[in-house]
């Protein structure tokens, strides 16, 4: 069992600094496997002049007990980190591939640092976001002089790619199963389902990117958005499972999970936006976020209809 302590981060930036943030994070100490003592980590937003924000770190991986301790700082981190995986995954260690990959993706290995407990808790957060009592911000930690987000193992609010991937697979299987129960199963139908799922995932990611762009040009890594978009499949799985068990439950479960997903996305996007928000038009924020939440319903409806 390991003890981790987040460092005290007390950051007061001057107004007009490039980061434009003003935040205070309290000391956060957690003892694994024992009594959680100490202080709750909160990010308090300073509302002076509408400037609020958590620090916006560049996206960097960091040392962790999983053994992939990257050394160095800056973009060299990503390149160096991907150097090991570039060879393994892509089979090529050319500079060109590495630099291009690091520009578009940001170290996919970060999103797979999960464990059982994280998966269980995250599923609870995604499926019942109104029950999440804590805060929704991601915990940051200074690494090599810059702030970066903690990996999903330590932070329930961090996005991961394992759950979306598994939820997607489960959705494909469950929909195929329900098709089979109706007598309409064929392997080609499964392929069509797969393609539709990928398209919906992609469009959902585009919607998130659009929302971020329209609300002030906040930057979030592509894989973050892919992760947030993929969480929709967990709700979809629940709805399809309900349909298999009792067909009328679908009419209740589908709007319910759509609502939950909308709430989840609104809360996470709000935190992502707070990192970069500069303007004062919070009403515009709220309308766009509401629109994004409402858009979940057509997506879910389309995904559900694919299996009928």
């Amino acid at each position: 069992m390991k003890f981790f302590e987040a460092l005290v981060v007390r950051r007061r930036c001057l107004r007009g600094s490039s980061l434009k943030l003003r935040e205070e994070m309290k000391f956060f100490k957690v003892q694994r496997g024992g009594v959680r003592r100490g202080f709750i980590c909160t990010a308090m937003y300073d509302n002076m002049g509408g400037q609020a924000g958590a620090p916006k770190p560049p996206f960097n991986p960091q040392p962790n007990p999983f053994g992939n301790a990257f050394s160095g700082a800056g973009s060299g981190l990503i390149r160096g980190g991907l150097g090991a995986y570039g060879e393994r995954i892509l089979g090529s260690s050319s500079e060109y591939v590495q630099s291009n990959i690091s520009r578009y993706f940001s170290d996919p290995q970060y999103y797979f640092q999960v464990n059982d407990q994280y998966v269980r808790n995250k599923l609870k957060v995604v499926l019942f976001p109104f029950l999440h009592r804590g805060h929704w911000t991601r915990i940051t930690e200074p690494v090599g002089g810059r702030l970066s987000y903690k990996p999903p193992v330590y932070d329930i609010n961090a996005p991961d790619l394992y759950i979306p991937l598994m939820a997607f697979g489960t959705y494909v299987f469950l929909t195929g199963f329900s098709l089979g129960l109706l007598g309409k199963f064929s392997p080609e139908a499964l392929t069509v389902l797969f393609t539709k799922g990928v398209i919906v995932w992609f469009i959902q990611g585009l919607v998130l990117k659009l929302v971020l762009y329209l609300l002030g040009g906040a930057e979030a890594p592509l894989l973050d958005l892919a992760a947030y978009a993929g969480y929709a499949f967990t709700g979809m799985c629940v709805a399809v499972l309900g349909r298999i068990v009792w067909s009328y439950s679908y009419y209740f479960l589908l709007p319910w999970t759509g609502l939950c997903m909308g709430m989840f996305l609104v809360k996470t996007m709000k935190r992502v936006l707070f990192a970069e928000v500069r303007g004062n038009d919070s009403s515009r924020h709220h309308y766009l976020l509401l629109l994004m939440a409402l858009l979940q319903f057509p997506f879910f409806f389309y995904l559900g209809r694919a299996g009928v």
Partner: protein
Amino acid sequence: MTREFNVPPIVFASGGNPIPNRRLPTAPFQPPPLSNPNLPFMSFDVGSTSLAAPAFRGDIDNGFEEVLPLLEELGINTRQIWRKTASILNPFRVHVNLHEDADLSGPFLFLMCFGLFQLLAGKLHFGIILGWVTIAAIFLYVVFNMLAGRNGNLDVYRCLSLIGYCMLPIVIFSALSLLLRQGAVGVFALGVVFVGWSTWVCSRLVIELASAGDQHRGLIAYACCLIYLLFSLLVIF
């Protein structure tokens, strides 16, 4: 006009000159009455030291060490395949050392059998099985290596081999489902049992053969479970 050809006289080693200018019809090869140990291809003795036999003799005695059996030449070790297969049949004891060397011939056999049983059920699924196994192997490879981090060392070949071997319960399920009525409740229950069997064996093998998988047993098992669930869909429906 006739032409005269000068044919050199043919002399046989055994003596007895044939009539010159005349070709006697002879057998393609004619052993001399005297067994001459200096002519290697004539010797029938087991203990003879004659070597360098021409290939058309076949492997009659152990003087022909260079010509391996076909399966061995192809690298298909049938005994090892049989042992690996038998080890999968017992899900409660996982023989990790048997599966250390990956091979694709066992999986190929299983997938062919799977395709044949599906064919008996009236479904032509050979290409689909091939495609799905490939995608499943890549999927498991990506998921395992990402979860395991820097220390994960599962490679695609071994991944494919393990997935293929653990397909054996699904093949048995496909065979059994031929005997059951389509859509019977028993088919679903059987499916659950066989998919669970496949998943258990596959996840245990993957975790023990490739390093750094220990902390993520449940997560990897769920990935394997998804793969075999999709194949069982092919069998059930």
